């Protein structure tokens, strides 16, 4: 089979490009340490979410010196927490999110950032991000979930450490009452 020299050259360039792309992605995963959402979060029964030890009363939970877990339930058309109450985390913290959906498939995106995942009934999306500075982010459901999809939004507030501590303490007390 005869292939023109220029086309062979192009074929070689195309292969270099492809390998270069795969190389960049691998660097992002291995070098920078970006991980994909995967099956690590395990599964959950969407029918009995209310009885679940974590998703039954979702929210923020301190797990270490600077690390927190945040459980979020997405349902038509709210994030719990997120929509009526913002999700609150302190600055300089490492936060692991556990996101699931109660009814249909939703999306969970911290607007303008790479914190972005699908929320699928029965599955738990687990991912960790680091919040460096205090500030406010929007939350948006980015997968169509029904006729009110466009109102499904929320807020994530990164607080200063002292503010967060007093808020968190108050939450704990209210929870234990």
């Amino acid at each position, binding site marked *: 089979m005869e292939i*023109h020299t*220029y086309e062979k*050259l*192009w074929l070689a*360039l*195309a292969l270099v*490009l492809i390998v*270069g*792309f795969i190389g*960049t992605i691998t660097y*992002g995963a291995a070098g*920078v*340490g*970006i*991980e*994909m*959402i995967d099956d690590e979060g395990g599964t959950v029964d969407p029918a009995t979410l209310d009885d679940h030890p974590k998703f039954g009363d979702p929210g923020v939970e301190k797990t270490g010196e600077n690390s927190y877990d945040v459980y979020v339930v997405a349902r038509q058309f709210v994030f719990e927490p997120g929509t009526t109450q913002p999700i609150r985390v302190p600055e300089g913290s*490492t936060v*692991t999110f556990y996101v699931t959906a109660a009814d249909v498939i939703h999306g969970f995106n*911290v607007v*303008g*950032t*790479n*914190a972005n995942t699908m929320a699928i009934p029965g599955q738990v999306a687990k*991912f*960790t*991000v*680091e*919040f*460096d500075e205090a500030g406010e*982010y929007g939350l948006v459901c980015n997968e169509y979930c029904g006729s009110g999809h466009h109102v499904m939004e929320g807020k994530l507030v990164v607080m200063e450490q002292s503010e967060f501590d007093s808020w968190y303490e108050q939450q704990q007390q209210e929870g234990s009452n």
Partner: protein
Amino acid sequence: MAVDSTAEGSAASPVSQASSSGDVPADAATQRGSSEPPVDSIVGTADDGIVRQIGHDDFDPVGTLILVVIYMIILLSMWVFMYFIEFLGRGLTVVG
């Protein structure tokens, strides 16, 4: 009932007349009936403008090579920009 009235075919017509006696595929000339309206409204008549036949061994697609290499350069620079500035430059990224 074609409403085509532009005279754009004027550039191509003399060429096609001249070349119909030459080495152009015969069908282009034989298919045209004498009572036909201007070829202008007929799609697919680029063959009428052929002034020379270029065979397999006489053709080096050098212009193509230039175009695709320019495309490759754009692809590579855009990729680097998108990955290292747009993507890795963002504040929040999933690290675990």
